[in-house]
């Protein structure tokens, strides 16, 4: 039983990081119908911004994180939206999908060429210890990852539901034309969605890199899991992406521990196919809103 609890807890912790990537993914999808195939690389890159600041510029840890956050907002938010997505709107379609794939190659190869191909240790301000919860051993870092991700997604939900800007962002995503008529600055709201995505990706990067090390190829599996989490939970619901991420994380861990190690990667895919065929709007999504 304590092993079960432990497997679930560490699954939740990994899942919460998937959830951050999935929420950003869903936001960008809603705001600009952009299926971002570079989402995994968006989570991989910010850790390297921090490493550049810390190791190349010799900055302290907190300044490195701040620099990475700003660089992510500028490059993954502003530049990605302005240089790649914006010129291809309103009807990006397949060329936009291809462009984001090329962005993913670009980011991966740039990191490999300019920083290095080896996995890099990544600093964490948190202590290394573990905690006992009901017989299960969980590292402080895992627990912090889970709580911090939940807090961020919770805060984001509050922002989207309770503030004027948040509601304008939702309106702009659901029905740009009507929102425009009602006086919402749709272009600005779309930009906000890209900025929030960049911030979430940077945050996920800071959380995931101390445990899994920073490596140029980290995004490959993460991106796919983020899609799956977003679809399983429901593309048009932020909470859906959160639940999807946690679910995928926990199920992945359970399958690896109790069923099969070789086919652990197959489980999210089977889940994905089942959800798409039987409940295409996702577990928490509703059929209204944007049809896909």
């Amino acid at each position, binding site marked *: 039983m304590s092993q079960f609890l432990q497997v679930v807890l560490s699954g939740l912790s990994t899942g919460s990081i998937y959830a951050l990537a999935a929420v950003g993914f869903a936001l960008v999808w809603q705001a600009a119908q952009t*299926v971002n*195939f570079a989402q995994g690389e968006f989570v991989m890159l910010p850790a390297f911004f921090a490493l550049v600041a810390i190791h190349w510029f010799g900055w302290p840890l907190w300044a490195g994180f701040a620099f990475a956050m700003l660089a992510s907002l500028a490059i993954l938010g502003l530049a990605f939206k302005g*240089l*790649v997505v914006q*010129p*291809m709107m309103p009807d990006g*379609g*397949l*060329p*936009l*999908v*291809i*462009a984001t*794939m*090329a*962005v993913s*190659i*670009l980011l991966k*190869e*740039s990191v490999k*060429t300019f920083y290095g191909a080896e996995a890099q240790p990544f600093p964490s301000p948190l202590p290394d210890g573990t905690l006992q919860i009901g017989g299960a051993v969980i590292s402080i870092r895992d627990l912090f990852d889970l709580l911090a991700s939940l807090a961020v997604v919770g805060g984001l939900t509050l922002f989207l539901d309770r503030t004027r800007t948040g509601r304008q962002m939702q309106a702009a995503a659901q029905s740009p034309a009507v929102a425009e008529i009602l006086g919402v600055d749709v272009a600005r709201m779309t930009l906000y969605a890209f900025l929030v995505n960049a911030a979430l990706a940077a945050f996920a990067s800071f959380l995931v890199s101390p445990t899994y090390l920073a490596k140029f190829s980290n995004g490959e599996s993460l991106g*796919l899991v983020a*899609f*799956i989490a977003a*679809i399983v939970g429901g593309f048009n619901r932020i909470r859906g992406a959160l639940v999807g991420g946690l679910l995928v994380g926990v199920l992945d861990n359970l399958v690896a521990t109790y069923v099969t190690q*070789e*086919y652990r*990667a*197959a489980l999210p*895919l*089977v889940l*994905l*196919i089942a959800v*798409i*065929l039987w409940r*295409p709007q996702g577990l928490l999504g509703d059929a209204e809103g944007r049809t*896909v």
Partner: protein
Amino acid sequence: MSSRRPLALIVAAVLLAVLLILPVGHGSYFIYLLCSWLMFTIAAMGLNLTLGYAGRISLAQASFMGVGAYTTAILTLHGWPWLAAAPVGVLLCFVVGLLLGFPALRVRGHFLAFVTLAFNTLFFLVARNEDWLTGGSYGLSDIPRPRIGPISADGQLAFYYFTLAVSALAILALWGIVRSPWGRAFKALRENEVRAESLGLDTRRITLLAFAIGSAFGGLAGAIEAPLVQYIEPNSFAVGESLKVLLMVVVGGLGDFWGPALGAAMVVLLPEALRGTRYYLIVYALFVIALMVLKPTGLMGIGKTFLARLAKSRAAAATEAKP
């Protein structure tokens, strides 16, 4: 359109002649690249049928290449001739395409992309884990080259001509399909699905057929890849490879018959041309981004715009010269 047909035939004949003499005197790596280009052209043309004509995104083309390659490899390693093994692989892809397409084509757009992506990953896992059948991550090696009667395609140049012949036949078959009533139905579907349906087309059956035929072409490409490389392993058929085939179709020009050939040339040959520099994949990615942002109709689109401009300026010059 009919007045242009002789021109198209002449272009095809010239192209074929060029391809016949191109590898003579070149090293075996160059010939390998040409074979690889032809193989990817077949795969991309098949995907173009699903994507460019029937308008459905599939990210599973590499897994169909895998089905074709593993089938051909396993059967020829058991002593079957290529001419018997390859059709089995192609047919298997057609059937798998039907089986996957039947439930998957209920959903559309990006959802279909993800279902096919998931299928590709599942195929990869099976290929890697089922050692008894696929050799696991070590793959299958010493795959024999085809032998037809007394003629063997063992040598690199002989194998190239064999690949060229198979590709020419495949492209001819595809040309026939595109111009058949089915092919016109595929196009009608892409342009306006509701209208196609109201005109009495069974859209679901047509899409399924396009998907299965496209998959079968993927299988044929795989059946060439197995004896070409003589060694196959799961990574050659991973999702990344499917994205590569997709890239060929879109970069070449979506829904354009010859687009995939151009796109495949770009994807296979350009990295080779840039290999000398350390930054070749970065340059390559930047090029693709720029192409998609500035000219989403791909290389064929650029060519057509250029030709149209040329014709226009010529016409303008002609009218100016008249009075």
